[in-house]
């Protein structure tokens, strides 16, 4: 064996759990409750253990999958995403009577695809991973088959996703045409050799790949699918895709652009500067006018993509570390917020308008407090993790001399506070009008939310260890 398969062990664990979930579903009597989610936890735990064991080894499988520390850090983020997603999916599955085996299997396959995307070092493999995760997520988006909203969301997401995949593939084709390879290291060295005078063909290849990635990370102006898809999907799925897909896509984006296409940075960083600024502004300004909480958080997540892009533009050591730390805190925070939405989702009534949160504090003080913690962290208030993450991103921008980007960033984050606070105002300062009962919080989802909140405080107050870990992870690929 001599370790040829080591690098794929994390995703193999998750895939095995996904297959087990499918088999279990086949044996499940209709209506029978089966702890299929538990299989997912086991698989994800396996992936986590494998990642810890692989840490610092630099394992490579087939010359195409590299379990370097960068990939493993993102893998850990994805494991957290998967675990929290499964934990908060329970109420949705029960109330909507979704096929739980299929649901968990799709979710686990998506996580496997994400892990592959984060560790792949070949453009074709990245594309393959992208398709694996996208197909699973398209189906998850439309898993409420009776709901027209859900179906519409899935169709929109699928069409635009397929469109962006074409861009991506076209970019790969051009890259191959230029360099004769799809392996990132070979492409990188050949580009570096020609980088003195970039040819139009090179720029076209880079541009097409940039568009493909920008679609996946929901950067403006390629963000149109996001609000519809996020609103139509069940809240737990939205939480999953707004964090997992973003983390995986940003990992690959970073790997391709900050190492392979680094020699062409002078050309693409100008465009990315504009995209980052537009993403932050559109995400927050349009978010202000939303009356649906899921849509509001969809725009907020577009905005957060903008902050991640700022770190990419800065492209210094601080920025690269910031991407990893930001992905981690954003994943925990956003999943927490969507977890609360999922808990409130009553099946027949989605309870996802801003007004539905009125007086939640009186009904469920703990749930309201958790939501507040997640929203304040998204808004970047200390001592929560969101503050450290934003501070890290803005330090990267200031250090690299992108002062205007940093100024746009801090001002848009003030605007974003305005709409996060709208929900807080509703929960705490508005009396409950409708009298609709709040659904009970299942123990597992509640525990996941509490743990997320504690993690946010931990990362906000004692971030040094994780920051060092993030900084150490980037050294392996750049």
């Amino acid at each position, binding site marked *: 064996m001599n370790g040829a398969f080591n690098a794929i062990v994390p995703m193999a664990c998750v895939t095995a759990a996904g297959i087990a979930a499918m088999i279990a579903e086949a044996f499940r009597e209709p209506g029978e409750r089966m702890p299929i989610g538990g299989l997912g936890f086991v698989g994800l735990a396996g992936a986590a253990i494998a990642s810890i064991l692989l840490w610092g080894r630099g394992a490579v499988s087939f010359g195409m999958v590299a379990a370097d520390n960068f990939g493993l850090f993102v893998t850990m983020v994805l494991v957290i995403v998967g675990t929290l997603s499964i934990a908060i999916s329970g109420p949705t599955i029960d109330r909507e009577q979704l096929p739980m085996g299929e649901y968990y299997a799709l979710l686990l396959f998506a996580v496997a695809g994400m892990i592959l995307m984060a560790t792949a070092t070949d453009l074709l493999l990245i594309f393959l991973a992208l398709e694996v995760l996208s197909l699973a997520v398209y189906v998850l988006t439309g898993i409420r088959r009776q709901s027209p909203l859900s179906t519409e969301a899935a169709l929109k997401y699928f069409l635009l996703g397929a469109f962006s995949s074409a861009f991506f593939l076209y970019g790969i084709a051009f890259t191959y045409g230029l360099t004769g390879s799809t392996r990132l290291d070979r492409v990188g060295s050949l580009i570096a050799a020609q980088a003195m005078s970039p040819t139009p063909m090179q720029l076209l290849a880079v541009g097409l790949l940039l568009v493909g990635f920008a679609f996946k990370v929901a950067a403006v102006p390629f963000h149109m699918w996001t609000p519809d898809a996020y609103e139509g999907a069940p809240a737990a799925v939205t939480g999953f895709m707004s964090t997992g897909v973003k983390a995986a896509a940003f990992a690959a984006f970073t790997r391709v652009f900050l190492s392979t296409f680094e020699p062409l940075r002078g050309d693409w960083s100008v465009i990315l500067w504009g995209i980052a600024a537009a993403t932050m502004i559109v995400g927050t300004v349009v978010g202000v006018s939303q009356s649906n909480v899921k849509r509001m958080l969809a725009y907020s997540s577009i905005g957060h993509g903008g902050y991640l892009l700022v770190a990419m533009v800065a492209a210094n050591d601080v920025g690269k570390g910031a991407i990893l730390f930001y992905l981690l805190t954003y994943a925990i925070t956003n999943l927490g917020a969507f977890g609360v939405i999922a808990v409130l989702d009553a099946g027949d009534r989605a309870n996802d308008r801003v007004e539905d949160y009125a007086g939640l504090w009186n009904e469920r003080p703990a749930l309201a407090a958790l939501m507040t913690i997640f929203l304040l962290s998204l808004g970047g208030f*200390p*001592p929560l993790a969101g503050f450290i993450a934003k501070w890290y991103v803005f330090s990267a921008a200031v250090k690299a001399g992108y*002062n205007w980007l940093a100024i746009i960033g801090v*001002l848009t984050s003030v605007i974003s*506070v305005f709409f996060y*606070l709208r929900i807080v*105002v509703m929960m705490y300062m508005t009396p409950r009008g409708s009298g609709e009962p709040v659904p009970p919080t299942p123990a597992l989802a509640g525990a996941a939310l509490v743990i997320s909140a504690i993690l946010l405080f931990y990362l906000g107050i004692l971030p040094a260890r994780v*920051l060092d870990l993030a*900084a150490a992870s980037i050294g392996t690929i750049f």
Partner: protein
Amino acid sequence: MPFPILSTLVALPVVGAILLLFVRPGDNEERVSRMIALVISLLVFGETLLLWSRFIPGSPEFQFVERHAWIPAFGITYAVGVDGISLLLLVLTGFLTPIALLSSWESVHTKTRAFCMFVLLLESAMLGVFVSLDLFLFYVFWDAMLVPMYFLIGIWGYDRRVYAAVKFILYTMAGSVLMLLAILGLAYLHYTATGSYSFDLLKLYTLDVPDHLQVYFFLAFALAFAIKVPLFPFHTWLPDAHVEAPTAGSVILAGVLLKMGTYGLVRFAFPLFPQAAVYFAPALGVLAVIGIIYGALVAMVQPDMKKLVAYSSVSHLGFVVLGITAMNMQGVQGAVYQMLNHGISTGGLFLIVGMLSDRRHTRLIAEYGGLKKVTPRLVAAFLIITLSSIGLPGLNGFVGEFLILLGAFRTDPKLAAFAATGVILSATYMLWMFQRVNYGPVTNEKNANLADLQPREWVVIAPIIAVAILMGVLPNIFLRPIGPSVERTLNQIHQRASAVLNAGHSAPGAGATR
């Protein structure tokens, strides 16, 4: 290792807030929560007094310094310390918090436990701001403070509380995020100069910041602090926040929160960017004087007592800023003293207004009249605090205003002359309000049977009056620790401002050295 007195001071209220989490809901919840919060806040006050008694007043340096690595990769340390400028502000915070809690005894009955938690968390953040010697730590406390105050205004405030709370938090944030960028810029400047990041205030004090950056950085810092003070024309959030906040919120807001702006100017903006400070000080002084006169004129026509006191804060804090921009011993020492005075007298005024509004559920001056016959003791307390706010000799307000005007006169006599009209104006609006509320016949029969001061209210107001008299009669007790630290800060500013001038750089404030 010596006893970490400052860390325990900052942590104690948080511990209290966590304790409150475990109070069981039920019949006793309200009483138990209040007792826990009160005991904790009294312990904090005791600890601030202990700090004062151990403090060496003759030393200008930071004392009780604690320093631990926090985020070593970025040179961020947990560094706290206290000097003469921050010492008494800590004592003021410790003094006002239990009073604020007591003042809400009758008026806050909903969600008392959460109320107490937010007050304690707020106290922790305020203490943290005053002890931070690391810019990152300072910013964390500075921003964290907004959240509990937001909830205090938004949940327990009056009718337009939500508007006021959101305005408060957005206004303050908008000002402070640019300061965050300036802090980052400073840290990277330190990196380029020495090869390592640092957010340590004492190291950054010695950093030479290029002139054009000084201007940007100073403006970013000054904007954050000017909004907090609030300096004219950034004051519009203040009347809303004050009017809508519950009494306890107003007391803390006026008593402590506003001081953070002026404290920030003295501690951070001026000494970190001395040349820019010298350059911009006259402009800030003019804004301060506009604020003094404008605040006083607007206060005069307010029908609402709380709004009147709020605008009087704009006017009084204009004096503090004027003293700081004078950049001499009398001015700055007077400014620090006036910060304490304003905390005591305006805090006291809000308490009195709160007591009246608890009784009548209105704050409109026109609704009152002739209270002197109905509630003589309350009116007596009201009178003493009004006089202290005006600056009557023998009470605290006089000392601070006198020193500030003296300092301002040495710098710019014209400005001082305009500022002095503020003293007259403040006597006008305060006494006019006092007269309309308390003298004359009882015009509204609802006022005829108001209760006089209750025992609990005695406990609230008596310490304020005692301190107001003490600070007026024996100002040296309070001025003694302030002096050396102010002198050190001023020397630092002037030396560095002129050192760079001598080195031949074209400082922005070349003609404006004092």
